[in-house]
């Protein structure tokens, strides 16, 4: 049996329509009109025990709405969810015992309380046996380096310290299912690494089923073997991360800032022009066909470069390309894809 089973899950929000001005406000009071917005549209997936799955999509794609339904906060408009055989909304409190949740953007700790006091409260809420609680504290003192933080009130913590504390709070009762919503948002690289290592070790060793939403493809690459990509409320990809990496991971983008205006450039094979701006040019190249240094040296021979930067293709771009059939026809043809209208 799967740990999480989602079938035809749908959420439609009714948004009240307001006409401008006082008249509109009064009209809205007596004869409200609603517009329906489908945030999640008939999605299906199953997660097995011990799986760590990346749930990704651009802002407004329906990620948070899905997570809120899975955690029992929101009631689905249609379809069904089973988490460990339960309906998370109808059996909210029973479901809550089995899950751990981190909402990266807001805290579940008490602002004014020292971390240890917040953890005491949470452990009691989940009826963690005192002996086990002590063990977990010792464990987290090691793995999350919490030892020195226990006496510190959350309000005095740095962002990274807060996230380590949030993870401890979400996992102290050793939940079977874990939802992590943007767990590395706003953190610097070194802290991100630590958080990822911790999640991998903690959730992996205990066989937790983890659903991770993030904007950060680095999180996904290091933690998940499987990704579900959602856009406009629909699942547009559900499969191994390898496929995504193979299709999209081979591209890099390189942006040059120039001292003068950009003439037309001749580029090495496997490299193409993405955009030119005022004293700025962005190229994309295939790492298999060429290298960053080849591209850079070719460009520098032709123009005076003040600065340049390298970046990985971003999620929004990948989503757009999947839409345009990048995964169907076996090859990515960015130029052709860009020319096609969005569906």
């Amino acid at each position, binding site marked *: 049996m799967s740990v999480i089973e989602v079938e035809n899950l749908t959420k439609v929000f009714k948004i009240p329509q307001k006409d401008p001005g006082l008249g509109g406000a009064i009209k809205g009071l007596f004869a409200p009109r609603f517009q329906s917005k489908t945030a999640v549209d008939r999605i299906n997936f199953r997660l097995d025990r011990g799986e760590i799955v990346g749930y990704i999509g651009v802002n407004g794609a329906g990620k948070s709405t899905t997570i809120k339904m899975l955690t029992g906060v929101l009631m689905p408009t249609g379809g069904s969810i089973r988490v460990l055989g339960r309906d998370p909304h109808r059996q909210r409190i029973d479901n*809550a015992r089995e899950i751990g949740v981190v909402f990266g953007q807001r805290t579940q700790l008490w602002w004014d309380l020292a971390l240890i006091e917040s953890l005491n409260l949470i452990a*009691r*809420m989940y009826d963690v046996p005192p002996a086990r609680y002590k063990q977990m504290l010792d464990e987290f003192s090691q793995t999350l380096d919490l030892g020195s933080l226990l006496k510190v009130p959350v309000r005095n913590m740095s962002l990274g310290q807060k996230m380590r504390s949030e993870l401890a709070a979400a996992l102290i009762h050793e939940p079977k299912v874990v939802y992590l919503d943007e767990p590395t948002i706003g953190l610097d690289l070194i802290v991100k690494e630590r958080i990822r290592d911790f999640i991998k070790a903690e959730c992996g060793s205990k066989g937790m089923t983890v659903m991770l939403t993030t904007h950060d493809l680095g999180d996904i690459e290091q933690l998940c073997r499987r990704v579900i990509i959602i856009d406009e409320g629909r699942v547009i990809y559900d499969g191994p991360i390898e496929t995504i990496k193979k299709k999209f991971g081979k591209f890099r983008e390189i942006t040059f800032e120039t001292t003068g205006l950009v003439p037309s450039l001749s580029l090495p094979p496997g490299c193409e022009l993405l955009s030119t701006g005022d004293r700025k040019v962005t190229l994309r190249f295939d790492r298999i066909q060429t290298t960053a240094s080849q591209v850079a040296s070719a460009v520098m021979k032709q123009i005076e470069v003040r600065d340049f930067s390298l970046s990985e293709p971003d999620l929004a771009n990948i989503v757009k390309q999947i839409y345009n059939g990048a995964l169907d026809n076996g090859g990515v043809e960015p130029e052709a894809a860009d020319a096609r209208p969005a569906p």
Partner: protein
Amino acid sequence: MTRYLSLYWLFLTQRLKVLMEYRANFIIGALSTIALQASSILAIWVVMRQVPDLNGWTYDEILLVYGLITLAKSINHMFADNLWTLGRQYIRSGGFDRFLVRPIDPLFHLLADRFCQDGVGNFLVGVALVVKASVALGIQWTLLKALMLVAAVVSGGGIFIALNLLTCVTSFWIVDSVPVTRLVFDNHLFAQYPLTIYPKAINILLTWIVPYGLASFYPASYLLDRSLGNLAWAAPVAAALLLFLGYRFWQFGLKHYGSTGT
């Protein structure tokens, strides 16, 4: 039940630790409520120096009424002050979701989240007023009267909490419920005085609709062996009924929240 009681105790002790950390805040909070009360009492004293009695009620008798409503209000103030902030602090920020992913009743969580120390000042003022009035009036305490005193304070607290709950639940729809709550809550000011000084409509309002009078005027009448005093035994019934309605309305609001998430 014992689980919730022990949880509440833990919430309370953690909260007190924070208060001890902000000792100045605690003292200023308590002092400011006492000062606020003192100014209202001073106003009563000034008026009562000019007139011997208010519709048959002397200064000390009015203090008893005032003391009883203050005690009932302090129960609400200490244990349920967080209701006021449901919309502004929890729903608007999305922080309310935190309550819904935990294995305890979200209403309990909301109330336990913040014991309000300022209410302690109110409680002390209430106790002082009732004691002062009792001594000055030479009230003959019997078991029934003592029982009435406890019943009045506890059910009065229940009436305050229930009415605040009923109005605060509107924040599930309108987010900021404070104006709605205030509209009802401020009626308790009438119940600081004997209801007989008001027109009939206000009497009915304060007895049958927003029954703050059951927490002050009626029990005071009972303690003073005045007419209408026996109606005070309705206070526990009214409190239980309103709390029941409040909790049902809360559940209805929660259901709405579950479908809209705003």
